[in-house]
């Protein structure tokens, strides 16, 4: 079991890469859309579009979303490497969940802040960027960490579209050696260590850099 560890490391690297790139992209897109969602009026058609997007992301399994993108891209005449199909699929999925994170964090800041800032002569844009978002960021840390672990777990599903991440790399070894259970147990350890260190690191940021924050319990499986 020990001798296969080095052969799993390239897979582990892809897992980390794919999840990290998707997290960064999805955070930028998701939080931005979340802020838009928080500040558009209820009747605005943009809201319906965003709500439909969130409904689609929450209402279908991630494996289906990955399949849709994987099969749809060639139909539309796009030739994308599975690696990037994977990143786009994970970003698409995670951004949908992060719209809610952004919206909730911005909503928690309080309308008085917004009014006060406008009264002091800030524009709406300045208010959002300089007053609301800096306060909202602290409340995003816990859900974003959770999002990182969700992405690491979801990246294992990319094995079905031949992305050579940890699960796929281990599968390749086990289908040659028939040591399925051993390799799965080994992978489980890899994933556990990865996810636990991500959440420890985030808790450290939360408590020592930003001051105490509240942890968020989330019972999502994707």
């Amino acid at each position, binding site marked *: 079991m020990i001798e296969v560890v080095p052969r799993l490391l390239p897979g582990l690297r892809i897992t980390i890469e794919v999840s990290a790139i998707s997290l960064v992209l999805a955070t930028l897109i998701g939080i931005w859309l979340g802020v838009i969602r928080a500040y558009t009026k209820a009747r605005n058609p943009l809201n319906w579009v965003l709500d439909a997007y969130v409904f*689609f992301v929450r209402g279908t399994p991630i494996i289906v979303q990955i399949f*849709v993108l994987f099969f749809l891209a060639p139909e539309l005449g796009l030739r994308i490497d599975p690696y990037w199909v994977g990143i786009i699929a994970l970003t698409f999925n995670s951004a949908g969940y992060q719209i809610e994170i952004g919206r909730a964090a911005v909503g928690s800041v309080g309308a008085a802040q917004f009014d006060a800032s406008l009264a002091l002569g800030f524009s709406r844009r300045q208010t959002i960027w300089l007053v609301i978002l800096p306060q909202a960021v602290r409340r995003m840390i816990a859900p974003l960490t959770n999002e990182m672990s969700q992405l690491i777990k979801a990246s294992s599903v990319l094995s079905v579209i031949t992305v050579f991440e940890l699960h796929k790399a281990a599968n390749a070894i086990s289908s040659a050696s028939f040591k399925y259970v051993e390799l799965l147990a080994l992978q489980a350890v890899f994933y556990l260590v990865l996810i636990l260190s991500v959440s420890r690191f985030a808790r450290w940021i939360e408590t020592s850099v930003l001051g105490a924050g509240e942890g968020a319990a989330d019972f999502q499986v994707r």
Partner: protein
Amino acid sequence: MTTGLDTQFMLDILPKLLRATWITIQISVLTVILSCVFGGLLSAWRILGGRVVRAVIYGFVEFTRGVPPLVQIALIYFALPRFGVVLNEFWTGVAALTFIGVGYTIEIVRAQVESLGRGQSDASLGLGLSPWQTLFLVLVPQAMRRILPPLTNELVNVIKASALLSVISVNELTKVANELIFIHFVVIEVLIELTFLYLVVVGSLMWLSRWLERRSAT
């Protein structure tokens, strides 16, 4: 018709996909019932058990939440026969999802029971009830009312996770749709129906969960 969609084909495959949806629902409902039973028992044990028992259950919960569901499903699929447990695909799928579901259920129950506050258990213990009586006669009945919305949510999660069973060849919705794509080389029509069916099932459950939440709030 120049929509570009083969509507006749979509009608033809609908019965097949509906049957597969029914399998998905059966697997998910069985999983939630089984995870409630085992999860309930284990969470009582987690709350009342000794230090070793608590540590073991804590480790189990961390495992189910920290390891990708896909890996756990494959693990159960390959590990069960090694321990002499031979099940067909359907029940292997139920077993795998139950394994994951129990971990999540323990967390849900623990969170609900803890949210009741120490006062309840202190008062009940002070009145001379045993810890087990306190749990089952005082805490659980109160937690029950609040457990329904998260459990519906859990069913939603299980339905979504059941799509992963396609990799161990359980004939649920995703697997059947995937096969249809490879047999007929028709992509968009199948994908539209696949996502639509999931959205109908999951969407109505999400709506039910919100309704239950509103009702239990008042």
